[in-house]
């Protein structure tokens, strides 16, 4: 019963979000807005930080598509995640500039410190580790981002210091 009502809350939140996103502006003097399966998925991920199963169903219903259609799109883009993330996100870049600046050593060091060995959450659920193909601040390589805030000149120690400040 309890999970059911929780689910219903989640569903109605998602529906509300989709409805508000779809509100087309009536004025002439404002930008147009195209609503698609992808734009719905992006706003769900933005608001809930992951794509719950319920969202796939709600978006299918809202866009008049099949669940299959929506899954097809959601599973294609690698930024979508399908389980709730940790409290903080830690993204470490493995792009070529960071690579020649020691990114692999940093990744190995961070794996050891956090006790994980892939893109996943730490045991306490605090941190979601991700590998990024390029964070766009190559001049400050190696680069990492905590909660999407970029930080340059990375080292294992610097990253751990940033994490400690969060806790």
């Amino acid at each position, binding site marked *: 019963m309890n999970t059911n009502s929780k689910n219903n809350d989640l569903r109605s939140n998602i529906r509300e979000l989709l409805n508000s996103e779809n509100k087309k502006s009536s004025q*002439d*003097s*404002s*930008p*147009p*807005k*195209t609503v*698609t*399966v*992808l*734009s*719905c*998925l*992006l706003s769900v*991920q*933005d608001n809930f930080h992951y794509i719950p199963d319920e969202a796939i169903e709600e978006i299918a219903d809202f866009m008049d598509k099949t669940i299959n259609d929506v899954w*097809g*799109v959601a*599973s*294609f*883009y*690698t*930024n*979508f995640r399908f389980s709730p993330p940790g409290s903080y996100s830690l993204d470490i*870049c*493995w*792009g*070529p*500039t960071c*690579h*020649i*600046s020691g990114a*692999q050593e940093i*990744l*190995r060091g961070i*794996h050891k410190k956090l006790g994980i060995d*892939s*893109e996943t959450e730490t045991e306490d659920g605090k941190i979601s580790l991700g*590998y990024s*193909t*390029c*964070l*766009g*601040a*190559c*001049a*400050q*390589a190696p*680069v990492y981002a905590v909660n*999407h*805030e*970029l*930080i*340059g000149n990375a080292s294992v120690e610097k990253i751990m210091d940033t994490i400690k400040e969060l806790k």
Partner: protein
Amino acid sequence: MSEIFNQLVSKIESQQSDEDILIRVGYGASGQASGSKKIFDWLKKNLKSNTDIRMVGALGLSYLEPIVDIKIKDKPRVLFSNVDIEKIQKITDEYIHNQNVLKEYAFAQISEDGEKIFNNIPELDNFSPFKYQKRIATRNFGEIDPESFEQYILTGGYKSLDKALNSLTPEDVLEEVKNSGLRGRGGAAFSTGIKWSFLAGNNSPIKYVLCNCEEGDPGAFNDKGILENDPHTLLEGLILAGYATKSSHGHIFIRQGHTIPIENARKAVKDAYENGLLGKNILGSDFNFEVEVSLTGDSYVAGEETALMEAIEGKRSMPRFRPPFPAQAGLWGKPSNINNVKTLSYVPWIIENGANEFKKIGTEKSSGTAIICLSGHINNRGMYEIPFGITLGDLLQNVGGGSSTGKQIKLLQTGGPLGGVLGKEAFDVVMDFDEMAKAGAILGSGGIIVGDQNVDVVDLIRNLVAFNQFESCGKCFPCRLGNTHMLDILDRACNEKSIKGDLDVVKKIGENMKVGSLCGHGQLGYNPISSALKFFDQEFIDKMTTHTIRDEKSKIPEMILPTRTRP
């Protein structure tokens, strides 16, 4: 100047109030990564009310960031580098409160209205590497607040659009761009004017001009850079493209997660609507144009033109078969044209100054400038707008300031992960689209990653192939499987497990990908390896064919890569 535009400019001019002190703090991805937000927050908190503190874009001198630019009335602008909290405290105490300029922290100054300059601080225009630039698309970098429509207008913004709508026909604008020799800065380097003419020749009432800021290329940050610094220049270019091709709609296409570019683009579009520069009857003319900011999820292939349309339509961003070409049937089945952010950002300048002025810059076949992103083992890391025609060696020495590690520079990785690797033998190649292609690399979108003697070429190539494999959309098998196999083989090479014949297999796979793939991702996927073989074949041969057992230490550990794949 049209009456409407004139009124708009005068209104903005009359609203300007001058504070005694104007402080500009450089932002953008690189500024953020070096901690400039902290400096900005500190200034906001600690300085008094007669100070105007602005977050502006970055000058491109990333290696000097955070940069703080202080303008005190009747004094030149003074630029301070690598500022931290301790330094900014000293700078404000000494310079703002006591008029002592602290030369040891200042790296350059700008005298805009004939203010008397300080001794022993170079002027920015003479400051190396800044002085090698010809700033066209990046002319407002570090000058204006990217979120301020008013500041863009005050630097002469939207003058070209007003000029075009008032005194030029769409055909005139198209001709001007064609004559300028402007070529696409996204990688393919096709003539922008000719590309536009395909769309202009189609009479459909609904036509799209799409601006590509997907920018997933590792090592390139200039598209994002333009949106971080000066989104209105791009928007003005996009509207001019719409006018020249008689289009009805524009899209600015950005990857979700590029937060600052997205926010800036949205604000710019909103302000343009509110000031009558978008929508119906722009500046009183009969030209109507709508612009929307569209977002995509993470997918490198979404930067391919037809895949980009799939993404805007909300589908998996996989390339389409051609024909039909975008100019016949593109987005939503309507005629469409796609340009890169940089390409469009040159257009306002070309319309203002004329095609001939643009042609005077650069080389015969590559006119204008390239916006280069320098990163890796080089001193002056950053973003520079450099006229075509400079040799790569001069680019590294003069603009780049040489190696940052004390070891010799060994290689350049250019044109993103589908580009190539160039060795020392190529350093006398001239920066030019065609010359660089001949040398086996491409200029692509302008990212240049510099590697010193310690860089293991095979390991670096493995990293590029790993990226290409991870980002393959999976639509056609030469790319999907080819990249996977090439990565396996390179992995073996890095772990001393090569099998006899591996190198030949890589070559065969690469050639097959070239002819058998639908889009550039597969067709160019062999580029990193083929170009590296040209300059560093011995390293590949050593690793892949001679099975000498090296000591444990020289082994390269297993590469850590994402495990998510596209099902």
